[in-house]
């Protein structure tokens, strides 16, 4: 038997919820195709109940993840980059298929994504030093402002960049101690679902990142309205959907990041890193 005749083993793509890889509770899947409309896989068509479960998992993970030392979070994120590096070929193939890129271009995108992940990993124990402050108040008080994670962040991953874009929106959310519910690019969810496999093997506690594939509008609507979600990144929503979601998000005053044009290849700066942080200011008297 000729080697080229070997029947390949296909992967069943699954959701990533609370550190586990379940199918959608709805039992639904949808066809994922490449840029030439060739079938790639059946991805789980996550439901609003899956979204709800993801929020529960993210909330459960928040205490531990936000309470971990920044050094520890940095180490874990760097570990993710190491794992990604080892799977470059896999992601290159998936990105090439998803985005219709040549192998070389896809490889460059994957390398950029790995490098971005490394870049963000290093921020874990530095962000407080650029975002915090010692405040010289007019009185005998020690007064310090420090950034803290906002909480559970719903992330609508960009539709136009299934992997580099995803990494660019996800890493800054979790490196500061938030936990995330990610809605993968609707038509190109496979790199995101594969990223879950990397996250699961990188010491990242279960629930810190939860990844859903499916219809962005269907999943984003309950997430935007969810009272236990603290913030939502609307990057992957179109203008009309984004407006509806922003309105729904007002019910519990979620922090909202609106969508806009983005160059995923450009230097990301600190905007996204600083977007999902709260500033806590602590006063204490100084006296004997």
């Amino acid at each position: 038997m000729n080697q080229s005749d070997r029947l390949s083993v296909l992967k069943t793509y699954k959701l990533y919820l609370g550190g586990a890889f379940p199918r959608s509770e709805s039992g639904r899947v949808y066809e994922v195709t490449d840029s030439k409309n060739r079938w790639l896989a059946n991805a789980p068509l996550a439901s609003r109940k899956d979204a709800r479960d993801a929020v529960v998992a993210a909330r459960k993970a928040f205490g531990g993840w936000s309470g971990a030392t920044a050094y520890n979070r940095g180490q874990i994120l760097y570990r993710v980059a190491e794992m990604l590096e080892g799977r470059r070929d896999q992601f290159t193939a998936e990105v090439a298929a998803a985005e219709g890129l040549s192998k070389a271009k896809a490889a460059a995108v994957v390398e950029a994504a790995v490098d971005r992940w490394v870049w963000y990993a290093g921020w874990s124990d530095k962000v407080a030093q650029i975002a915090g402050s010692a405040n010289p108040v007019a009185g005998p008080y020690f007064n310090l402002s420090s950034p803290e994670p906002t909480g559970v962040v719903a992330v609508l991953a960009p539709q136009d960049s299934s992997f580099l874009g995803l990494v660019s929106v996800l890493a800054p959310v979790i490196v500061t101690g938030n936990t995330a519910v990610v809605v993968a690019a609707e038509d190109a969810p496979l790199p995101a679902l594969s990223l879950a496999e990397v996250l699961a093997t990188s010491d990242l506690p279960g629930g810190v990142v939860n990844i859903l594939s499916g219809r962005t509008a269907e999943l984003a609507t309950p997430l935007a309205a969810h009272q236990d979600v603290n913030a939502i990144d609307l990057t992957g929503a179109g203008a009309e959907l984004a407006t509806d979601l922003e309105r729904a998000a007002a019910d519990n005053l979620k922090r909202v990041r609106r969508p806009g044009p983005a160059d995923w290849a450009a230097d990301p700066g600190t905007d996204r890193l600083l977007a999902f942080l709260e500033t806590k200011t602590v006063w204490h008297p100084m006296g004997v």
Partner: protein
Amino acid sequence: MPITVPAYGKEAAGRLASMADMTADDGALRRFLHGLPGVDAVGLQARAATLGTRSIKTTAKAYAIDLAISMIDLTTLEGADTPGKVRALCAKALLPDPTDRTAPRVAAVCVYPDMVATAKEALGGSGIQVASVATAFPAGRVALPVKLADTRDAVAAGADEIDMVIDRGAFLSGRYMAVFEEIKAVKEACVRAGGTSQSETGGGSAAHLKVIFETGELQTYDNVRRASWLAMLAGADFIKTSTGKVAVNATPPVTLLMLEAVRDFHESTGVQVGVKPAGGIRTTKDAVKYLVMVNETLGERWLTADWFRFGASSLLNDLLMQRQKLSTGRYSGPDYVTVD
């Protein structure tokens, strides 16, 4: 809350005896004093400052001025004191404002032990008390027998009140029991020959004991609270801030803290103890701030010369000038009050 008894009354001793567990030994006393709630310095100072913003005007001011005059321990504690100086001070105590006989008398005249007899003679049966500093005031750095002799000498000369200093060295080095025992011993020494240490009337057979902490040397507010409880447990009739002889004397926050300690001691034992800020209180405005603190911390029961005193000298003339201003509508001047 138990029924109130004066610190110098015989029932007070029984109340203190019920606290004997806390003063059984050095360890127990230390644990008790260190178990008192801490004092946040900034918060205490802020509270004192806020009370200092009370605006006391017209009738309230007139009331406060007369009250303050009646609470003064008119003091001279100089190496250069002479019988003549002390007699002049006593004359002023008896008739603070020769131009206005409605001005109240001060509460006491405070002198060194060797001037007690002179003061006693000058004040006669006026009811103005003679207070004497003792226990090697102001440093207190002599042996206990000398302190006790100093005290007995003043009492024998007729002192109605003894202002003792605590051994700050012992206190700061944590020898609380030594301080406690010393206060108890001095209290015993306040008993007049043939009397007992407790009397019902206050003017009787024992001099009242004021215990001076020299809060400027204790440095921390926590220490002031501990010293307050320690002295009250040892039988102090009054607790007093300062000798007036160091850089930092009475301050509003320290006095407020001592008022709070007195309040808490009264809450738990029913024993009423007096408070005397001393040193650095020179103006009517200052004095009124202290009265506001007493009013809003301890209330009316303490607003008498029996339970609150000012250790001061120049304060009296400022109060008198303000008093003249209130009655005449004109500002007075130093030539219209007497020097002593």
